[in-house]
């Protein structure tokens, strides 16, 4: 694979990746660095954890999932950084918030005891712990995203909380197989400007190049303006892993049969 002439450098912030990495969300950063190298994009990654300051600027923000205890640990500090993160989102910084990170980028999470953990409200979504007797949403998941040219995205989901979109919120994707936000309305994740929230891990970026390239291009546009483009380079390993995972999801996950979009 030949690296194209350099398309520039993007500044990637990986938020709390030592705390919020319960489903190998680390793979998203690894895949991003690998793909960027193949496309001729340089990556300046900074890892920001508890107590660290956010950098002055960013083109792409990543945050993964955590256990309940870990989400509680970062929630307060994340809320204090909420204003800046929302400002970045308004400025079209690209973002990917996965699972627990997606929940905390919403308005709030109400746990099983009825206690509300505040989120940063970047996405107009709220999440509630499952009522007694409800199971976790666990399994392969296949969705179709209308965002850009992302299209089919495949992954694995594992969440107890049920997430509901607010009146103005747009879903990231529509569920074909699996549960998605709540197992009831057929929506998956949320999109706000260039920020994407999703329950899909697996890790999600390595085998969904449409999504990965979408984020890379959005990050380049943030840095260099609306003309910035990437040339899609085929990656046979990513394509094969994607196809294999799609086949598994179609065979193994429940087909979503709800009607609401």
């Amino acid at each position: 694979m030949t690296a194209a002439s350099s398309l520039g450098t993007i500044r990637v912030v990986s938020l709390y990746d030592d705390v919020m990495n319960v489903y190998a969300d680390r793979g998203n950063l690894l895949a991003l660095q690998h793909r960027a190298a193949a496309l001729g994009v340089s990556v300046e990654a900074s890892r920001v954890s508890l107590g660290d300051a956010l950098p002055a600027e960013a083109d792409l923000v990543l945050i993964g999932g955590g256990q309940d205890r870990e989400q509680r640990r970062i929630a307060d500090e994340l809320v204090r950084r909420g204003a800046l993160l929302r400002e970045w989102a308004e400025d079209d910084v690209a973002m990917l918030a996965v699972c627990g990170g997606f929940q905390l980028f919403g308005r709030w999470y109400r746990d099983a005891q009825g206690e509300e953990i505040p989120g940063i409200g970047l996405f107009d979504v709220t999440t509630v712990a499952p009522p007694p007797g409800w199971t976790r949403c666990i399994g392969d998941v296949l969705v179709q995203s209308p965002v850009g040219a992302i299209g089919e995205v495949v992954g694995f989901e594992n969440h107890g909380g049920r997430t509901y979109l607010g009146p103005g919120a747009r879903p990231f994707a529509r569920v074909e197989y699996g549960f998605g936000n709540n197992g009831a309305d057929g929506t998956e994740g949320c999109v706000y400007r260039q920020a994407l929230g999703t329950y899909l891990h697996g890790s999600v970026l390595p085998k969904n190049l449409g999504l990965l390239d979408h984020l890379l291009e959005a990050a380049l546009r943030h840095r260099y303006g609306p003309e910035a483009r990437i040339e899609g380079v085929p990656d046979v390993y990513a394509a094969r892993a994607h196809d294999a995972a799609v086949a598994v999801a179609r065979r193994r996950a429940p087909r979503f049969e709800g009607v609401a979009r």
Partner: protein
Amino acid sequence: MALLAGRAAGEATRRLGRGGGTALPGLVARTLAPGLVESLAAQPGHGVVTVTGTNGKTTTTHLIAAIADRAGMTPLTNRTGSNLERGLVTALVDAAGADGRIHDAATSLGLFEVDEAALPPLFARLRPRVAVFLNLFRDQLDRYGEIDSVAAGWSRMLAVIGTAPVLILNADDPSIAALAEVAGGEVITFGVEDRSAALPEAEHASDARFCACGARVRHEAVTMGHVGWWHCDACGRTRPTPQVAARRVTLSAESSTVEVASGDDAATLRLPAVGLYSVYNALAAIAAGRALGVSLADSVAAIEATGPAFGRQERFTVDGRTVRIWLAKNPAGLNEIVRALLSANRSLHLLAFLNDGIQDGQDVSWVYDADLERFAGHVERLTCAGTRADDLALRFHIAGRAPEETITGTDAALDAALGATPAGGTLDIVATYTAMIDVREVVAARAGERAYWEAAR
């Protein structure tokens, strides 16, 4: 009646050739007689030992069996790694006669590896005399849930148990060491004292980063994942000094030499296994031996004389090549295997399997938490295989070492990898659980060995 039906079911599945029949008899017997575990587990004259933890259960159980055997006990184990309730029931049913009595009950020792999530409901029914806790790593979240809830379940289980077992605890793992706080009886800790065995830098797959008090645990050094020399600034909890300790560890490509101290005794263990994780398993077994009244010298002799457990660093000779099989179930375990393989300091021929069955974990994300980047520059030839061969190939591709071949089928992958290994060379096979069962059977057949349920008997 339940016993006979269970035994008949085991014989029937084995005759039909459908796997080892190691779980079905248990399922039948459990359904027919719900009190069976209690009545059978009460019979062994030397009591019951349980072994749990994320990694090392099967090997540690295997080593304790060797120690017990040398001390004149008759260990009664679920050796094939069938470690959920029905696997245990199967082991007990197989040992019992039609009258429900275990043969040679007076000399027998119930010795069971128990899945970490299956332990709490079984604990009060098995009433162990000795309970071994090895480590707690992230493993198959789709099956077990989050590690916090596993640790909390163990604590509740220990707090309510009537007769207190001797707890064998890993001093170096903060979430295991904390179980001493709920112990009702004796505690024997084990750990590595040799700081030269520490890693130069922390690994990514470190899980128990938080203390029982909620603060972040500090590590002065780590041996693997979150295991090492730890303390908590907030509450003062700290790694206890291990009572069974590896004072000095020398790891080599084929074996390890360990200076072991246990109380006032000391001995040199020449461990026929690779990697620091194997040292932890041996220390746990020696500590369990101590709880059973076996001397350090006898435990060391027993461990030195025993071979590897099923599918764990087992070696075979096939077509003039050495084939080694490594079971990899989770990031922490895979990182240890990577480290052990690299310690050989030669170019590797590697056949790596990733399956996504229920016993492997249907979620294959975990391969991104293992530091496969370390393989770059050390692998002569790589074949990716298994039901999720393409996911594994992508992981290696991202790690900078794309495979030469990606082949889903077990036989075809083995043929390709063996064919590419020079005569006299070594092929290392790293595989998830169900893939290991498959490939080991093929390898063993080609090497002229018996199938696993026969070997385990």
